[in-house]
């Protein structure tokens, strides 16, 4: 056995801004560019070719059998790294050596066709993922029982529930048995039971001595499953360290920006359009940006965004997560039926959605704010699970006469009744 599973050297990937947006060109553009190329150099300087390095000077090695976590904000280059490793896209410079077959769970359900039955899709998807026909046949029963779709195996998958569909898709990918498994955010979808299954499968894979690269925003999953973690930011590898250290570094360094988070243009994915996030801020009652909040006082979260075009059914909301990545709650600005009616269509413009988080809700500790902008069942425009981090100060919270850490993420002020029974039932 070789000593490395993955060797990455000086890896870089450059995107032309227009190209990253997925803009195909028209012949007319190519012709007109060909002619404008002859124009003066002055004009060329005025318009420098807009390009960004989604990944630059990345170096690392992975030993076989290790589970490596990858964390980073949106636009940090995680997906680009995975795409290069799974040979979907070519690097602009540098070199990667991969020893063995790379399977990736970012392609769950790739090539699934709704008209085909579960059985047919297993064969097709397996072939797309690079399995041999004999291999698929040998594992067929195992895949079906893992996905729990026995009775529907000859039904077109368009009649499947979304949960069944996902389970089947994951089952095929999970049985690929690659030497190197790449897992990207699949855990964000599916129910808790399914997520548990995915994580279980991943640790099995690792126990069998195969290499796993795990990309996630879920810090508790990263902590549970990986020993070592890479921290990426703006295309650069900032740190490689034991997971506990790396997560701590990531959460403390990458996030706190004095109570507000402004999104740079290169951090906003192209598919967010026409939604453009501007900022999320933590504020006190007076509207000042603050770094932390107190359990005993309400605080405010404000999301500022621009709509380039009108959006129907848009909801903008926040998540609150613990520093371990567990969700505390999710709330949207149109949760209220009245607002839901009123804002069924939002015209273009700049908006602020502001919410009061009441006092005596969160316990003391560190929390993370995530932002989500979506139209239900239509599209998720923007999603950043780690937009901002802040500390809650427990001073003045219920029970602070005892200077101890309270277990739990919420710390409500509750009304206790204490009654003393007068010995009647006692005797």
């Amino acid at each position: 056995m070789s000593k490395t599973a993955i060797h990455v050297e000086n890896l870089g990937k450059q995107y032309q801004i227009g190209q990253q947006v997925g803009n195909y060109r028209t012949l007319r553009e190519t012709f007109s560019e060909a002619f404008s190329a002859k124009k003066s150099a002055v004009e060329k300087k005025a318009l420098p070719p807009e390009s960004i390095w989604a990944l630059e000077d990345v170096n690392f090695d992975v030993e076989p059998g290790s589970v490596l976590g990858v964390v980073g904000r949106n636009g940090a280059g995680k997906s680009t790294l995975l795409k290069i490793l799974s040979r979907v896209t070519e690097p602009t410079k540098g070199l990667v050596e991969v020893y063995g077959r790379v399977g990736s769970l970012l392609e769950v359900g790739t090539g699934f066709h709704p008209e085909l039955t579960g059985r047919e899709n297993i064969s097709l998807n397996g072939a797309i993922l690079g399995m041999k026909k004999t291999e698929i046949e040998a594992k067929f029963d195992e895949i079906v029982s893992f996905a729990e779709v026995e009775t529907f195996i000859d039904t077109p998958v368009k009649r499947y529930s979304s949960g069944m569909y996902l389970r089947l898709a994951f089952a095929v990918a999970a049985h690929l048995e690659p030497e190197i498994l790449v897992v990207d955010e699949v855990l964000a979808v599916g129910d808790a039971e399914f997520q548990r299954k995915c994580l279980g499968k991943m640790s099995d894979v690792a126990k069998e001595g195969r290499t796993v690269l795990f990309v996630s925003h879920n810090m508790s999953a990263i902590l549970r499953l990986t020993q070592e973690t890479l921290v990426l930011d703006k295309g650069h590898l900032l740190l490689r360290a034991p997971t506990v250290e790396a997560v701590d570094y990531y959460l403390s360094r990458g996030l706190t920006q004095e109570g507000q988070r402004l999104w740079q243009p290169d951090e906003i994915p192209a598919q967010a359009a026409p939604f453009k996030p501007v900022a999320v801020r933590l504020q006190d009652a007076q509207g000042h940006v603050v770094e932390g909040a107190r359990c005993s006082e309400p605080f405010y979260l404000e999301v500022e965004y621009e709509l380039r075009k009108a959006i129907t059914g848009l909801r903008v909301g926040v998540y609150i997560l613990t520093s371990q990545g567990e969700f505390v709650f999710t709330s949207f600005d149109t949760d209220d039926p009245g607002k839901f009616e009123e804002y069924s269509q939002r015209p273009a413009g700049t908006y602020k959605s502001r919410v009061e988080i009441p006092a005596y809700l969160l316990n003391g500790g560190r929390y993370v704010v995530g932002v989500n902008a979506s139209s239900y069942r239509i599209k998720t425009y923007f999603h950043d699970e780690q937009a901002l981090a802040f500390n809650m100060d427990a001073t003045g919270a219920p029970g602070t006469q005892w200077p101890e850490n309270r277990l739990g993420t919420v710390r409500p002020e509750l009304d206790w009744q204490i009654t003393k029974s007068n010995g009647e039932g006692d005797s």
Partner: protein
Amino acid sequence: MVSGKQSVEKRSETHSEPRKIIIRPTGGWAALNLRDLWVYRELIYFMTWRDLKVRYKQTLLGAAWAVLQPFLTMVVFSIFFGSLAGVPSDGVPYPIFSYTALIPWTLFSKALQDASRSLVNNSHMITKVYFPRMILPLASVLAGIVDFLIAFVVLIGMMIFYHVTPTANIWTIPLFLLLALVTATGVSLWLSAMNVLYRDINYVLPFLTQFWMYITPIAYPSSMVPEKWRLLYAVNPMTGVVEGFRWALLGSGQAPGMMTLVSTLVAIFLLVSGMFYFKRMERQFADMV
């Protein structure tokens, strides 16, 4: 017992394979790497099968379309070109004369239509998983063979009806079919790769197909073309295909000669250049599509 057996299987699998894959930027004209295509040959089969299966499941008439399209075109041609305009048909009944040409032509035009959109239509696959991208247009071309065979059965029926006996050269049909497939694949590789970069191809395609049909001897015999222009005329490889079909099945038209040679050479040129162009553009697909 069972678990022991499994672990042995797994070990043998993982040990046989750990091949080293090197990923680095490729510049300019990349090598074709046909070996990769061979490794993924099962996927070619599965994609072809998927194209067929989905088409037959989704359409009301299913396989009947394979026959209806060339058949109805033949009826229209027979009425307007054969009867009304009196276009000569080399002494063969006009319906069978045009239908013999329409079968390989339908294969070709359908391949162009499906294959040139294959990359764009399967963009979700291209952006998610690696496989030789050439498989997509290739599978679209190959799926046409089934339609071809169905339409061919109808031709046999027509030959019986018109009492046309096939010539002894009927064994050469697979060769001319191959020529049609090579041409279709070559052109499809060019068009599908260009379609990723320039969506104009979608608009060019109907025009291109129509234009191409007029310069191919489908509604008329190639004997109508003046002798001195014949070789130039054969630069269109579909001319060689159609002439070959008529010669092998009906005994009309030109026996394979210089024209067939020119057609074959052009077809091979289209295929090889198409492969290189496709390979060169391939590395941008995931970012552009």
